[in-house]
Structure formats: structure tokens, C-alpha cells
């Protein structure tokens, strides 16, 4: 007795045709690009919905570095919070210090001397170069060009040396104070900066030669992660990501702070809004920062670096030790903190990642009632699902690197 089984054998060509016609429904795979990952630039978790290799949807999940900065700020005086601002965008700590100092000074309604403003510009621009160097270095490394990473890191070491000279710490500087700076620029700083400015353009050119017309780099970044202009504005994206999408907006030009109106520089703006444009914007911003630094160091004004209001800034040590009034001011300043007027103020500056803003609500006294940190990376990351849709899994790495966010400031 034989049993007959009927089977239908589909040969591979016919099956392939079925897939191409979309008749075979494929299951979408949900992949977790976890918080611990070499290419996520910090602790970011992305839940990807993949159709084979193509990304259908991407949901970023943040909060893996939420340290409670805003709650801590409500329990610290304004000056005590300065080290926490270092650790927000930890690739450019000097820039955060400068922004925070200006925010509190806006609340107090005070101005700082011109020398202080110029030195703060120098700090902010050095921080911008440092942050872009690391962004481009890891961008290159993620895309495959490992040499760029080492070149940019050795330039960053020179910037670290300068930061150490001016503030005492390589990295988390806490250099600015409310009403001035921790200390004046030491005389060794100027020749260091000048020699850096002489050597640095050669490195940018070298990175340029390695990456900009590199066939592989262009293939991996052109038309990847396109962010249209209207979407970028609607989300609130700022910084090089916004300028890469074609919006000409830079806070240094539209609301000049810290004497940026004295400097001549250009703001690079992209056209397409893809990863390549954002890369080019950052490269050009570094060159413009060099230009600003040259002007700043050539025209550095003399004079005091701290504002003379002793109720806000600690008075000179000699005066504290010899005169009564300064002693009282020092005591009150250290124990009670600065007496800020009640009111609320928002100040934002053009940080390397975008618009870093501090919204300070004060009910009087030495500690803020509420300190909200408007972090550029928090807002820029909302654009990720829009940029990633339709691309391949490996393009995700490119998009993340070109967004150049940092989780310290995103999660605060």
C-alpha cells in the first residue's frame, strides 16, 4: 500500500519573486541598540524596528544618565552649581561655564568687564573646536576611518593643555564665576594659543584631505539622514544640525553676547540636510573659530577681569584680609550666596551642540527656585526617528555620529 503525498515545491527563483512582489509578509524584527554600545556615543538606547536590513522605525530611549542636576540646582547656590555645568556637555565644559555665568549675570542684571568677555569668547571657541574635533573624530571612527580619531585626539590634547594652563584642570574646568572668572589669564597662555593657532589649520586640512573627498566617506554620508528644514524648525533643532538643513541662524549673530559683535566671522549653512552637510558645517565652523580666536587674542583688552561689585563676586584677597567692608562681603557671599532678585530669566548661547539655555526662576536669595537646562542634545535627538526611517542598519551609526549629541546634557 502506498500513500501518496502531494507537496508543492517552490523553487528559489519563484520564491524570490514572491518576496520582491511583497506577497510574502515579512515579520519586522525589533532590535535593541542598547545603552551599552560602541557607537551610540554615550548611554542611549534605541529600539529599532527592522524589516530585514531596513529601518522602519526608531525610538530613542533616554534617561540612562539622568543624574538629577535640576533638583541639585535647587539645593546649591549659584556659584556652587558651576561644577555641575561642566558635566553637562562634557565635550566642551568651558562653553557651558560661560553660558551659565551669563545666565546668572542676566538675572542679576550685571555686566562684566570687556577683558572678561574676550577671555570668555576665547574659552567658548576653544571649547567649540574641542567638541567638533571629538565629534568628527568619532564620526570618522564609526564610519571606518580610524586615523582621523587619533589625529583629532592629539589636537584635543593641545586644547587640554591650554585649559589646564588657564583654569588648572584639563577637562572639567569650572573656570567662570558669576561676575567674572576664577582667575585672570596667565601670561604663558598667549604663546600657547598662538602656536596652537599656527599649527591647527594644518590638521583641519589633513582631516579634510582624509575625509571630504573620500569615496567611501561620501558614499556613507551623502543623502543619509536627511532632515528637512521645516521639520527641523518644528522640532526645535539648533546648532550645526539646523544649519546643515539650510537655516541660517546662529545666536552669536542674531543675539550677540559676550562681545561677539566685535568679531568678524561667517556662519556656514548647508543645503541638503544630510550627514555630509552636517560634517561640512562642523569642519567650517572650526575654521571660523580659529578666525575668531585670532581676532580675540590680537585685540585682547587690558583691565580687570572681574566685575567690581563685591556683593556678587568674591573681593580681592588682600582687601578681605585688611578691610572690614570687604571681609563682611566675603563672609556673606560665601555663606549665604549671591542675593538674586526675584524674577525669571532665560539666557541661551551658541554651544557647539546647539542652543544651550538656562531658564532660572528665582524667588530671591542665593539658590534658584527652579533651574531648567534647555539642552540642545535633548531636542536634537527627537529628530532621530525622522532621519533614520528608510535607511539601513549601518546608516544608523552614521546618523548618530552626524547628530553629535552628548548624553550628559540630554539627560542632565
Amino acid at each position: 500500500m502506498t500513500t501518496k503525498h502531494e507537496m508543492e515545491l517552490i523553487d528559489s527563483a519563484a520564491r524570490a519573486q514572491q518576496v520582491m512582489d511583497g506577497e510574502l509578509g515579512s515579520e519586522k524584527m525589533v532590535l535593541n541598540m542598547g545603552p551599552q554600545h560602541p557607537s551610540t556615543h554615550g548611554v542611549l538606547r534605541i529600539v529599532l524596528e527592522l524589516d530585514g536590513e531596513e529601518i522602519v522605525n526608531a525610538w530613542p530611549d533616554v534617561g540612562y544618565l539622568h543624574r538629577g542636576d535640576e533638583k541639585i540646582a535647587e539645593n546649591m547656590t549659584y556659584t556652587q552649581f558651576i561644577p555641575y555645568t561642566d558635566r553637562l556637555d562634557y565635550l566642551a565644559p568651558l562653553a557651558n561655564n560661560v553660558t551659565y555665568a551669563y545666565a546668572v549675570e542676566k538675572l542679576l542684571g550685571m555686566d562684566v568687564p570687556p577683558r572678561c568677555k574676550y577671555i570668555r569668547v576665547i574659552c567658548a571657541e576653544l571649547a567649540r573646536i574641542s567638541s567638533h574635533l571629538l565629534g568628527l573624530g568619532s564620526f570618522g571612527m564609526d564610519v571606518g576611518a580610524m586615523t582621523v580619531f587619533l589625529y583629532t585626539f592629539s589636537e584635543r590634547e593641545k586644547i587640554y593643555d591650554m585649559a589646564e594652563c588657564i583654569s588648572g584642570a584639563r577637562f572639567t574646568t569650572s573656570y567662570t564665576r558669576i561676575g567674572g572668572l576664577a582667575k585672570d589669564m596667565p601670561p604663558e597662555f598667549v604663546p600657547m594659543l598662538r602656536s596652537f593657532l599656527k599649527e591647527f589649520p594644518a590638521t583641519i586640512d589633513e582631516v579634510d584631505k582624509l575625509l571630504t573627498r573620500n569615496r567611501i566617506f561620501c558614499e556613507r554620508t551623502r543623502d543619509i539622514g536627511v532632515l528637512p528644514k521645516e521639520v527641523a524648525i518644528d522640532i526645535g533643532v539648533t546648532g550645526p544640525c539646523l544649519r546643515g538643513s539650510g537655516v541660517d541662524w546662529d545666536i552669536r549673530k542674531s543675539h550677540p553676547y559676550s562681545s561677539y559683535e566685535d568679531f568678524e566671522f561667517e556662519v556656514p549653512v548647508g543645503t541638503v540636510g544630510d550627514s555630509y552637510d552636517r560634517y561640512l558645517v562642523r569642519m567650517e565652523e572650526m575654521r571660523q573659530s580659529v578666525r575668531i580666536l585670532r581676532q580675540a587674542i590680537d585685540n585682547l583688552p587690558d583691565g580687570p577681569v572681574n566685575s567690581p561689585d563685591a556683593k556678587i563676586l568674591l573681593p580681592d584677597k588682600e582687601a578681605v584680609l585688611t578691610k572690614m567692608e570687604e571681609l563682611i562681603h566675603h563672609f556673606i557671599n560665601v555663606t549665604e550666596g549671591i542675593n538674586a532678585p526675584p524674577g525669571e530669566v532665560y539666557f541661551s548661547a551658541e554651544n557647539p551642540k546647539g542652543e544651550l539655555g538656562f531658564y532660572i526662576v528665582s524667588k530671591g536669595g542665593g539658590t534658584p527656585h527652579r533651574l531648567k537646562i534647555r539642552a540642545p542634545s535633548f531636542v536634537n535627538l527627537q529628530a532621530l526617528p525622522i532621519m533614520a526611517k528608510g535607511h539601513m542598519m549601518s546608516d544608523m551609526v552614521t546618523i548618530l555620529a552626524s547628530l553629535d549629541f552628548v548624553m550628559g546634557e540630554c539627560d542632565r
Partner: protein
Amino acid sequence: MSQQIETGFDPKVEGRDVIVTSVDAAIDWVRKNSCWPMPMGLACCAIELMAAGASRFDIARFGAEVMRFSPRQSDLMIVAGTCVYKMAGVVKRVWDQMPNPKWCIAMGACASSGGMYRSYAVVQGVDHFLPVDVYISGCPPRPEALLEGLMAIQRKIAHEKAVVNMKTGNGPGISTPISGPVIVRGEYAPKLKG
């Protein structure tokens, strides 16, 4: 009159170039000079970790430049940065995936003790759920400090018993990594045997 100093050894086996040492010494020497770190770079200390791996401070001279991001292929987990409670489970799971022998460096103030973040969301030190071998202080520690910590791990490895002595039963043996649901307890600190 110049003295010529030559390096020589006294062979215990006649006629052949053989060095005699203990297995522990040989294995420890190999392990400590090729410690592959798993950089658990969480926050700002990760940048100094990267700087230690770059050309100026060069962690490669210690054999540790192979920053393996896969826990299965690494020996040394460097927790660099603030560990928050949301991330703690992840760090613990990655630690459990690392095969023995493994060591842990808590780099920086935040990983050692919570640092300057005394707040609701931050684990006050990764030693609440990881067995830490070396603590490096600093906020962030300079790359030289990280290299000093790495050298401290190397000194620690040099004193370990690498193999089981079949006759006496001394030594650590080979233990399997923990898998399954992550258990985080405050008192979890397994002692290194041997």
C-alpha cells in the same frame, strides 16, 4: 675597564634552553600584560578613558588598547562615569556576561561613590552591585591616574593563583558566569578565592 653585563639563565635541564617557573607566574604574567578592557563609558570619565587610549597616554603600552565592547571577549571592565539606577541593571548584566577571570575598575568619583551627585537617581558607587578591584579617584581622573589604576590591577593579577592544584585543591578553579535574571543586592561582593 668596562664590564660586560650579559643576561643569562641557569638551565635546569642540561643541554636545552629551558626556563623553569611556576605555572601561576607564567599565566599571571600573560594575563596582566594583555588585559583587554571593556569600557563601560557612561559619562565624562569616558572621554578621559578615550584620551588614555589615544596617542599621548597610550594605553597600548600596557597591552590594553584592545577596547573590546563585547563583554564575552574582555577581561577588565572599566566603569567610567556616573551609574544611575536606570543603567545599573544594564551594567550588572554586562558584568555577568563577562567570563572569568574578570576584574573591575571603578574610574572616577561617580563610579566609586556617587561623586558629587548625591541625588535620587544616582547609585552611590558601583560597588553596591559590582565587586570592584580598584577605585580611581578624580573627577575625571587624569589618564595617568587611569594608567596607575591599570598598573594596580596588574599588580593584583600578579599575585593571583591561576590554576587549581590537583593535589592540594588550592586555587580558584574555573567558575561559570552567572546568567539568568539579574540580581542586584547591596551586599553582593563575591570574594576572590585563593
